[in-house]
């Protein structure tokens, strides 16, 4: 303790102040939870004033890498477009369309799945048969 500490006070006031100081300082206790909490905060405080040099080195590496990645991705595009072929003559177009529209011997035929008249005649007969017999279960 500094010899000139509280020198401006009277003897009685200084004695009182020093007694109070001793007791207050003796009461400065932190439990383990509080100590851990404050230790975590101190770690955050340290990080705030940590030198930024090592952060700059990473940025100096990242910037050229980003530029190289962008340049590489652009290199994949072939800027030389292929020449567009000229339009075929009308005769050539007609010959090509004739092949498309020509009938084929092995082409599939479309058959309607709508039931024929025999089906409905048989259905009517079946329903008449059902009505005659009370025991026969429905299909």
């Amino acid at each position, binding site marked *: 303790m500094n010899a000139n500490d509280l020198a401006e006070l009277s003897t009685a006031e200084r004695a009182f102040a020093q007694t109070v100081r001793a007791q207050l300082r003796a009461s400065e206790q932190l439990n383990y939870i509080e100590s851990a909490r*404050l230790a975590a*905060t*101190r770690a*955050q405080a340290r990080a705030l004033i940590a030198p930024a040099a090592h952060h700059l080195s990473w940025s100096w590496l990242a910037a050229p890498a980003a530029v190289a990645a962008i340049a590489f991705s652009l290199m994949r595009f072939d800027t030389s477009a292929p020449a567009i072929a000229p339009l075929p003559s009308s005769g050539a177009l007609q010959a090509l369309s004739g092949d498309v529209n020509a009938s084929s011997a092995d082409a599939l035929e479309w058959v309607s799945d709508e039931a024929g008249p025999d089906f409905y005649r048989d259905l009517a007969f079946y329903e008449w048969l059902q009505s005659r017999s009370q025991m026969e279960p429905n299909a």
Partner: protein
Amino acid sequence: MRDDAPTPQGLDAFLAAAQARAVRVAEIATRSRDDALDIVQDAMLHLARAYGRRPPAEWAPLFHRIVENKIRDFQRRQSVRNRIFFWRSSAAEDDEDSLPEVQAQDLAVLDATESLMQAEALKRLERAIAELPTRQRQAFVLRVWEGLSTDDAAKAMGCSDGSVKTHLSRALVTLRAQLGEAWSLQD
């Protein structure tokens, strides 16, 4: 590197040495241990963020000033809150809601170092300090409890050396009147 250059390790050492006392100072002013811890944590980060690159010799008055400002902000919020919610219980009753394990640990600490009578005397002292006018309390805490010089205390309080001495003198007169001449925790 210069000896007075700020370093993370130096800041950590300063805050580790100051934290327990700062928590007690804030606890007496706010009458809440949790609020005191919040205030000290905020003050630590504020010091690092705003003044971490200042010379270490300036950290003590700066940190105490930050703590006092945050205590004042807390008390202003409390007064507004109490005006709005006037039916809220007092802070003394809130203290009884602390976690049982924390109460048990506080009691264990007291039993280890002080008798029950000393604990009551300490409570009287805390109440007396808390009831001091703000500037007197600041002068008392900085000069007597923290042990700062008059010059550093003046920097922390933002006033002249003479004002610090005046406030301290009045604080001591008030405390001695409230606690009595024979007050002492040491039998």
